[in-house]
């Protein structure tokens, strides 16, 4: 199995969720995070004091998927999350050794 993680713009969460739903992804975990990358270092002025806003709000989503689906999931997230502007985010894929559904004890592909 693969564990696909993506850091996306908060406003795109609903679109990504729907797109994944359409390719049959049934579960997902989302976390509010802050990030920076290319999109960084803009200077704001607050009451006359300049400061650099380094971190911007993002949403991290995590989806465990069977190996076979991984490619499509990455593609789907990419399409649904892309606005074309800087700060659209990143997708990271790792190997997932094991998955367990707590309620039933089902394992691996059955669990996700």
């Amino acid at each position, binding site marked *: 199995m693969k564990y696909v993680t993506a850091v996306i713009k908060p406003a795109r969460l609903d679109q990504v969720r729907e797109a994944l739903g359409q390719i049959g992804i049934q579960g997902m975990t989302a976390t509010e995070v802050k990030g920076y990358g290319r999109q960084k270092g803009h200077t704001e*002025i*607050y*009451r*006359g*004091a300049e*400061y*650099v806003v380094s971190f911007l709000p993002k949403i991290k989503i995590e989806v465990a998927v069977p190996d076979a689906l991984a490619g499509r999931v990455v593609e789907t997230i990419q399409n649904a999350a892309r606005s074309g502007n800087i700060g659209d985010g990143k997708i990271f894929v790792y190997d997932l050794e094991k998955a367990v559904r707590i309620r039933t004890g089902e394992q691996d592909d059955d669990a996700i």
Partner: protein
Amino acid sequence: MKIGLIVLGGMLAATPAWAAESKISSGDTAWLLVSTALVLMMTLPGLALFYAGMVRKKNILATCAQSLATTALVSILWVVVGYSLAFTAGGPWLGDFSRFMLKGLTMDAAHDLAKTVPESVYMMFQMTFAIITPALILGAAADRIKFSAMLWFMGAWVLLVYCPVAHWVWGGGFLGDAGVLDFAGGIVVHINAGVAALVTALILGKRIGYGTENLAPHNLTLGVVGVSLLWVGWFGFNAGSAVAADARAGMAMTVTHIAAATAALAWMAAEWFVNGKPSVLGIVSGAVAGLGTITPASGYIEPYAAILIGLAAGLACFWASTAFKRRMGYDDSLDVFGVHGVGGTIGTLAAGVFATVAVAGLNDKGQPAASGWVDGNAAQIGIQAYGIVVVVIYCAIVTAVILKAIDMLVGLRVSDEDERQGLDIALHGETLQ
């Protein structure tokens, strides 16, 4: 009605005791009781929330604790000796100890400045001013002052700065005698607090991260609630200073509201123009600037003047809290000087310009209670400036001395580690979850 009763009293040859009793007006007393509640509400929760909303999340409870503890501490000091020092005859420099521990403040006592209300009510009303003035200063010390040092500072400042200055201007002291006009506290409250704040900011030094990290307000909703309650409470502050429920109170409330509204719009417009967006922080700061600025003039002027004063307040305080502060490089964290110091100065001078006998009426001796340039009395502006200069110098020096002394004795500023961790957990062992 008061007049009616007095006329009647005369006609019926009432006994002196009768006449004395009849002076207490239940309507005036009701209004001053309410005004006292309103001005207390300005500090708790008004100012506490305004300040708490503008600091970072890790310092929010500590900021509340400062307003709370200041209220409690100053109240006790006021009852013990502060009221006596400020509002008894004494001499030109200070009152005396005749109201020490409120002795003599019996059920039938009345103060000369408030003949139609029981003295207990007047004492309480003035207490709320003595509370909010030092509490205002704390905006300059946000995020970095020790709680213990803060307590020492508040106690010393209210006795050594607030009480004398209140006596000079209001309590029968030399500035009042010189004719300085300060209806509800431009000099006594706002300039006093603003100057002390500037000195505090300079002596404490900048917050860690000032100019590099994001120090923007973490929860402006609290700021909005705080300023809203300040605004509402200010009706008690200014209209209550008429010490009667009459047309003067009505006009004071009117000009207060007009100045607040105008200054809020002015600051909003200026920021929209300069920065491209009107911020909520700007709108509420403008409202506070208007309220503080109108204060010294509020019982003396007509509505049109309130619009001009509001405009000046919004624009000048915006500039003072942004461009000017940045150029000077001090970290007056919540802009107490930029708003209250600058606003108080403008308003005190404006009282010299716009005060008119049409609103101020006649005093006991049948002379105009106040008149400014618009009444042909340009000299009043000079008198106002004299009052400002005296208080700025006195306040700056004594504040600096107090702070330096406390720094030597207990230390003013928390450790860097505590400042980074946040005062809530470091000083009070609590956090906002």
